């Protein structure tokens, strides 16, 4: 078995573990809905619901009596399936990292020089950012596991099945130190922006639920009751996204410096440059929206979602179908 074959085997192993982790996270979300519903029922049946406790499936739950016309929040620990999900994510991450490193050794260079390798490294960074945030953040963001493992699984699967190319030497245009810096920072930015996207989606769902709760008498309970409120989610999303934005700014500048050395001009509105610029402007818009009265909240969340859509568009459609100088997808 060559190193590259070992790498590919590791990729498929990582995918299998990601798939199981995804299922575990999904079960956890379903459980959250059940717990939230039960808690709401319990709260409704108690005459003076100051605080009632039920234990469901090992996860201690506390119902805080809601003030009238407010969304119920249910405290929720870590269910066994959630623990399994996180543990498997770590296992998958290790396999994934090993796959990426062996690919790099097999190619005798950084493993991000074609579409398959971008996807391999990019998804590894998405998982890494997620795991780091789990350790660093004061809030429990394990619920994002469903999104993260799902996204990584899909991207990795598409890459391994459709984009795989065997190891080939670097064309002269890519033989530059900027390949290491520019592409790595770009993929890192993608990791942060992906997480910001997930948080913004949950923020929108949560905000809709809160609006319903404020206007209607009853709200169907679901997993959202166990998650942070929308403004907390918004602040978390913002903090993840500004890191991504700064990395993206650096990507754009490093790309310009490289373009100057490789193509003789630092900016020439090549299709990839155009989309890098568009992404930058959309996220600049997001940051301004956060500071604009009437735009903070759901509207800025939509911008974060649009922003990440442009990132994905840039990575897939622009790489594959648009003509330009960044034709290094290797396909």
């Amino acid at each position, binding site marked *: 078995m060559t190193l590259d074959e070992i790498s590919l085997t590791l990729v498929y192993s990582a995918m299998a573990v990601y798939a199981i982790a995804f299922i575990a996270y999904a079960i956890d979300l379903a459980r959250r809905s059940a717990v939230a519903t039960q808690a709401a029922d319990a709260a409704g049946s108690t005459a003076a619901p100051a605080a009632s406790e039920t234990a469901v499936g090992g996860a201690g739950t506390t119902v805080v009596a809601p003030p009238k016309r407010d969304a119920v929040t249910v405290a929720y620990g870590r269910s066994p399936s959630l623990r399994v999900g996180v543990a498997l994510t770590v296992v998958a991450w290790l396999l994934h990292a090993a796959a990426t490193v062996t690919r790099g050794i097999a190619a005798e260079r950084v493993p991000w020089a074609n579409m398959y390798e971008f996807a391999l490294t990019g998804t590894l960074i998405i998982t890494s950012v997620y795991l780091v945030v789990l350790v660093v953040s004061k809030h429990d963001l394990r619920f994002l596991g469903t999104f993260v493992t799902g996204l990584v699984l899909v991207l990795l699967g598409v890459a391994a099945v459709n984009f795989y190319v065997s190891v080939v030497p670097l064309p002269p245009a890519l033989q530059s130190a900027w390949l290491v810096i520019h592409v790595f920072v770009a993929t890192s930015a993608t990791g942060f922006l992906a997480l910001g996207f997930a948080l913004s989606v949950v923020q929108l769902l949560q905000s809709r639920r809160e609006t319903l709760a404020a206007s209607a008498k009853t709200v169907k309970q679901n997993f959202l009751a166990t998650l942070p409120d929308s403004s907390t989610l918004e*602040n978390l999303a913002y903090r993840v996204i500004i890191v991504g934005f*700064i990395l993206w700014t650096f990507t754009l500048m490093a790309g310009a410096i490289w373009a100057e050395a490789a193509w*003789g001009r630092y900016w020439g509105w090549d299709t990839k440059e155009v989309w890098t610029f*568009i992404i930058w402007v*959309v996220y*600049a818009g997001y940051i301004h929206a956060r500071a*604009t009265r009437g735009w903070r909240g759901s509207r800025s969340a939509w911008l974060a979602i649009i922003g990440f859509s442009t990132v994905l568009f840039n990575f897939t459609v622009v790489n594959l179908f648009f003509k330009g100088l960044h034709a290094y997808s290797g396909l």
Partner: protein
Amino acid sequence: MSQRSDPDALSRPADHIDSVEPAAPDRPTVDGGPGAASVTRPKLGPLGWLRFAWRQLTSMRTALLLLLLLAIAAVPGSLVPQRSSDPNGVTQYFTDNPDLAPVLDRFQLFDVYTSAWFSAVYLLLFLSLIGCVIPRTKHHFEALRARPPWTPARLSRLAGYTERPLVSTDDLDTPSPAASATRSAGEAIDRAAAELKRAGYRVERYDVRGEPSVSAERGYLRETGNLVFHTALLGVLVAVGIGGGFGFSGQRVVVEGQSFVNTLAAYDSFNPGRFFDDTNLDPYRLTLEELDAVYETRNQQAIGQPIDFTARVSVQGQGGAPTDATVKVNEPLRVFGTDVYLLGNGYAPTITVRNPDGDVVFTDSVPFLPQDANLTSIGVVKVPDGLDEQLGMVGFFYPTQTTLGSGAYASSYPDLVYPVLTLNVYQGDLGIDEGTPTSVYTLDPTSMEQLTGGETGVDSIELMPGDTVELPNGLGSVTFEDVSPDAGSDAAADVYSQSVSRFASFDIHDDPSQGWVLAFAVLILAGLLVSLFVPRRRMWVKAARRPDGTVVLEYAGLARGEDPGLEEAVRAFADKHAGKAQDGSAD
């Protein structure tokens, strides 16, 4: 969160989240008339309208809409080929879509980034930016000189409010007696002021109604960074717009052994900037000694893939000695104020044409343009003089010739393993005598008669390096010269590896704005980092006297902009200053 309206907010646009919300609902709407909702509409004179328009333009909402508009306006340039980056694509688009293309052209869709509408968006955006940055800069300079504001009367309403019992510093174990409370309160506040100052706060002591307090503010760098970021964006625009006009870019194809002198006439194509003066060209001489091309030979997945291109050149300034240098992809040569890039290469077969008497009427290394990855190349030979009629030849060059199943020739490897040149010969009028400029890479056969290849029934002329073949109709002969240094001795196995000259396609640029743009870009990044990560916050410590006569230390903060760590910071400061809270009430 701890976002609050601040009476002396940072001179932001009226709809900034940090500025004071107008009390009346007659705030002008984005889409139109002033005070759409108000009953009494104020009369606006011309100056009033101007002021109103300016306020609209510099509002956050307008800036945001312009930003989003800019993103949308940039999209078409990636869907339709652009003249600036892909001129051949534009030509092709006109051929493929003869009806649609002129319509798109009318809307400047082939020049999106210099179009009137795209320019309008970004100029308005930058105007809005200027209108926002100038008053903020002014305000910031004032803030930098101002004292931290008066301590608010009720700190308990502010973010992160916490209190600690007043403990005199000399006997930490016992609560201080009431008599010494006043003295130790003053000391505690002094100590708080000193600690805050050490932590980078600007501090000011205030005594309100006998209650000593300290007011502190930090993070002025946040606003500085923000202003630097926005100003540097303007700087980039100006540097690109004006500085770029002083530069030029030119292209020149140079065959091995030949040289090029940096003068206007020597360029194959030349694009001067708006303010470029060609007397600024330094006439240095650049000679291409050799072009080394290395192709993959071992990896079965990548046979023939380029590994390295290196142009070995010598450069000679006016009156100077020649110096050797190399130009590689990604490694431009920066000499005499210009940057020389290696952007392409190919083969330049050396072809000699003799008349029936055996006199040379044409001999030159003719650059052939590569058509595919294995360097199947097409070139044109034009012999205007020396024969009875003008002669044109369209040649195909295959560095490693192979025959496809269809019988057609192709190249199977980009290096010189089995080089073959085929020529289709045309006789007649080349169409170059009228002085109309024609491309050296194309032949217009309209007034010529084809003698070989195609439908003539005569086979194309086929040559390998060193071969000479008679031209049809007794016109003379054509030779494909072998330029190997040891031509004739076929001892070496790779007998053809040096047999055909290569050419390098150089781009030569000068862009004096580059350094400026880079400097502004660095400022943008630095400003961004500072403005997003340095928290701007105020903190107050007050020794408050309770109705029962006891004195407690109150701590509170105020965020100015995003500051997720504020409450934690207030608590940490209180813990440091007066010890951890005894009960959990502070939380």
